[in-house]
């Protein structure tokens, strides 16, 4: 596929690059991601065992625990957080973790909200670049 440019809404703005990790099923970071390694540890999740560290994490929305913001923040501190998070539906809890990371450590993964039709076309494994404006470039 050729290069694609999408316009997302930056819930928490920032620039980042990384490979897309596309989760079709929502993931709770608390109980679902080990902040020390960045590995998905929810055994019921189809992508259990894979790492979110440095990836452009594409998922529909978060689920479960309200401590997911803590796990994302801890991931930022330890350098295991995703490079960016691209959501299909508004999820305040991950955006919150990112907003607090910015306040506390002056860095955070951007969190984007993408229209469902655009969200569907983000391919697994593609190189993606997020711009501060919320623009998302996918390499072809």
């Amino acid at each position: 596929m050729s290069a694609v440019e999408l316009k997302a809404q930056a819930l928490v703005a920032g620039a980042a690059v990384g490979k897309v990790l596309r989760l079709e099923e929502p993931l709770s970071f608390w109980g679902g991601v080990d902040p020390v390694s960045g590995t998905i540890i929810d055994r019921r999740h189809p992508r259990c065992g894979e790492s979110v560290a440095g990836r452009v994490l594409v998922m529909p929305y978060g689920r479960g625990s309200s401590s997911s913001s803590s796990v994302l923040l801890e991931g930022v501190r330890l350098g295991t957080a995703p490079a960016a998070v691209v959501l299909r539906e508004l999820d305040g809890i991950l955006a919150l973790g990112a907003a607090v990371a910015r306040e506390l450590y002056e860095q955070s993964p951007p969190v984007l909200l993408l229209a469902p039709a655009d969200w569907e076309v983000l391919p697994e494994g593609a190189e993606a670049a997020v711009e501060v404006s919320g623009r998302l470039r996918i390499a072809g």
Partner: protein
Amino acid sequence: MAAANTPETVELTERDRAMLEGDFGEAAAVAMRILVTMAGVYGAERLLDIEGAHIDGCLYHGDSGVDFAELLVAGGARVSVPTTLNVGGLDLLHPEEFAGTAERRAKALRLMECYEEMGCRTIWTCAPYQTTPRPAFGQQVAWAESNAIVFANSVLGARTHRYGDFIDICAAITGRAPAVGLHLEENRRAQVVFDLRSLPHALRSASWLLPAIGYLVGERCGNRIPVLLGLERVDEDGLKALGAAAASSGAVALFHAVGITPEAPTLEAALGRAEPEEWIEVGVSDLRDGLRSLSTAPGEAEAGAAGSVELAIDVVALGSPHFSPREFAELMPLVERHPPAGGVEFVVCTNRLSLGELERTGKLEQLRAHGVRVVVDTCVVVAPILRTPAGGVLMTNSGKFAHYAPGNVGFDVVFGSLAECVRSAHGGRLWRDPELWP
């Protein structure tokens, strides 16, 4: 989907602005900055006043949580509304229950102290609704802890959005929250109907099944608002178990149950007199699916199957959300008849109020004599409490434990009724109650 407002366009009062500018201290400025950012994220037009908060951020997940709390404490943070605390990382009354490193223990303790210093009430429970005072119907609050959120909204009819760690304390310090989501009447109507009416009556009123019903509701409705039709004879402990399971498998922050929860006197009222987006008929096979997804143990026989199964049980863990006095009353005679075997670790998590009642009535001593450990202030999936090495099989009647134990503490899980848990602990291997299915 687009949230229309940005932090720049959120309408702030004079007091909000004064807080932002530091007139109420550095901590209030940090808190207000985060609130305004989040108001922008949620697309809120303004902030609203809240009358209470419940804080999940006091549980240790790593040093970043301590960094944040220390930043607030150093900035002179004080909560401005009545605020309660969720579980912490250790049992302050029984510190010997902590099996983690001294360093982790010290940090978990420091984090708990920080929140105490900010003026929060140290009830240390994930079930704050089992203590008093509780939020009133229609009252605006800011609660975190997924099971507490869903209980406050659904059972009490209080109004909180699905908040996470950190914004909870920001709301408590400022007394404000984004005017968005479940705070607003128009966003509280049900979207998905779960119709249980074709199930046999015995299953519709079976309290042990409520976590399985909640689990399948959470899986199928995701982040939409469900209404359950046909649920029978369910008490607050049952609603607590159902909500906690739904908030684990899904992003459920509010459910309605027709004839049971306060915003659902009728199906039409729960739906806000609109058409549902989806109507899901729940049959016996769906319940079995829900039960199956609650267990991960290899070769686990179907829940509800009869007789004994060759599966060794290493741990029985109860009390997520925290066990209530009524649940202890139900547990007591079961444990007396079938005390746990020596090799099985049996832990019940609860709050100090329930513990006090157990102490007064002499039941705590009896439970301990039978080898039952009662843990307060924390729980087994959030803190290193279990003594059994990971890798074994943990049995529980809690949908929330069943969901989180594999990832958080490395046990396979088997879900069962309270009686099944007790009998399995007694025999050291899985016991299924043949009477559970009609």
